[in-house]
């Protein structure tokens, strides 16, 4: 068997889902018996059959990838429950196997996949989508690029009619139907104190997280960002969210402000003060990048 053919044969077996008892399936990929499939290319030894040797890799694959998703989506897990989350992750990995050299990217399609497969979250679909979005935004905010921040001098000669501003790659804007930032913080608090010796307090914390996971809808506008390399969640007003969203889509500052306040209930006389406050916050937090200067073309 040539190298590529052997690697495809082995990968099909390694990536095939485990049985309910978390062992290698008796059925081979494409039909037939897995024992015969394994013995075609794996040697047995005096202690293990070909099937058992291949099974070590099959189990390692699934345990490693499931563990990576559990680590990245603790909030989604608390919403769905352990058993449903585990089953959902298995289905997700079958549909969206890793195509990146790093496991960091394994969950990148979770929100869109979950949206296309509503049976996994059922009645909690909207909540599940929100928490999945937040957890992926959290990963991106943690290690996305940080560019030089915009400063006052950059704006000195700027014209609002033409000025376009670029958000830092690590800043993520989320409009959410549920206050899932509270949920994720509660889940993390529980995880942090997982080693508590008092069984009663552990039970109480889990009860608290379960209660938070049954959140009532409450629309929020959230910015996931980082300061000094720590990720933070900041709730903002709808108008501020609208300005940021419009700017992130490449609109000029004038158009972004116009669209943000068009449907706002904020009295017009308060708009200027609000915008000034937004800019103060954005400058303090360094959310915008310094514009890239294009070199003048010499004749």
């Amino acid at each position, binding site marked *: *068997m040539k190298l*590529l053919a052997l690697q495809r044969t082995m990968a099909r077996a390694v*990536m095939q889902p485990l049985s309910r008892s978390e062992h290698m399936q008796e059925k081979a990929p494409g039909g037939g018996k897995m024992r015969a499939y394994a013995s075609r290319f794996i*040697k047995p030894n005096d202690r293990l059959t070909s099937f058992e040797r291949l099974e070590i890799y099959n189990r390692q694959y699934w345990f490693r990838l499931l563990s*990576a998703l559990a680590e990245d989506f603790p909030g989604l897990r608390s919403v769905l429950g352990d058993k449903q989350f585990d089953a959902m992750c298995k289905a997700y990995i079958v549909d969206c196997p890793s*195509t990146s050299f790093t496991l960091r990217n394994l969950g990148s399609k979770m929100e869109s996949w979950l949206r296309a497969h509503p049976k996994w979250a059922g009645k909690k679909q909207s909540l599940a989508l929100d928490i999945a979005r937040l957890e992926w935004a959290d990963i991106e905010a943690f290690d996305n690029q940080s560019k030089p921040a915009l400063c006052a001098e950059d704006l000195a000669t700027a014209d609002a009619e033409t000025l376009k501003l670029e958000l830092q790659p690590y800043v993520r804007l989320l409009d959410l139907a549920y206050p899932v930032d509270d949920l994720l913080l509660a889940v993390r608090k529980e995880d942090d104190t997982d080693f508590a010796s008092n069984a009663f307090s552990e039970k109480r914390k889990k009860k608290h997280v379960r209660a938070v996971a049954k959140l009532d809808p409450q629309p929020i506008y959230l910015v996931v960002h980082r300061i000094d390399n720590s990720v933070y969640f900041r709730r903002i007003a709808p108008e501020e969210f609208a300005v940021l969203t419009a700017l992130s889509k490449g609109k000029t500052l004038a158009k972004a402000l116009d669209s943000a306040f068009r449907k706002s209930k904020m009295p017009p006389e308060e708009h200027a003060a609000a915008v000034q406050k937004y800019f103060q916050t954005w400058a303090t937090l360094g959310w915008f990048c310094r514009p890239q200067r294009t070199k003048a073309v010499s004749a």
Partner: protein
Amino acid sequence: MPANKFNGFTDYGIGIGLRATHYDHILSRKPVCDWFEIISENFMIDGGRPLQILDEILEQYKVVQHGVSMYFGSAEKPNREHLRRLKDLVKRTKTPWVSDHLCWGSVDGRYTHDLLPMPYTFEAAKITAQKVREVRDFLEIPVAVENVSSYAEYHVSEMTEWEFLNEVVERADCGILLDVNNIYVSSQNHSFNPLDYVNSVPAERVAQIHIAGHSKYRKYILDTHDHPVIDPVWRLYDRTIQRVGHTATLLEWDDSIPTFKEVHDEALKADKFLASSVLATAV
């Protein structure tokens, strides 16, 4: 052979793997440690805390890069995005050499994130060596390939694992990261004498050595990096040092990680073997 072209003519001592649980201790106490090995993929990102930590570590310590997903033995071409990011990191760390495993783990663009064993065939050796050369030429620094622990063997194999390793490194003209724990684990899983392996390795190509602990199950041994190094592995290490001389040595401890001091103390046990090799050379 402490310094050779495969480790950039460096003479590093005993290091440990840089792990997140030790960050605070290292940055606040600045303990003495010859060098740290980083998992390249953990730092092949665009920004944030991991790179900040790395920069702080680089101000104080020597760092060597070790990868887990280049998959020299995969039949497909190297991933260009992976190579570009790896090179950016090489520029940042100024690592004298990079290492990754003599294994495969991806096919048709899908990654298993595991170190899958190679079929020991001449075809595989040729493909693997070509890929090692491509990576080295792109990165413009020495590359060392590491032998992996394995739990399966293939019918198609035409040679032993150590013959395959030799075939690849000769064809690629690259270095070896010799993992003596992996030799021990595979020897138990496949019933061969680990000394045959150690004695056959081209000593002049060994750029670095790995030591680690493992877990023993009823029918096989798993390379878990969650225990101290056992005596039979230290004996293999001793024999390796006798053959290759004072060589950069690193202890891997990736699960159930104890305190920095415990990990470092375990690594420093290598000192007595390294010291005896220096004495032997002097005599």
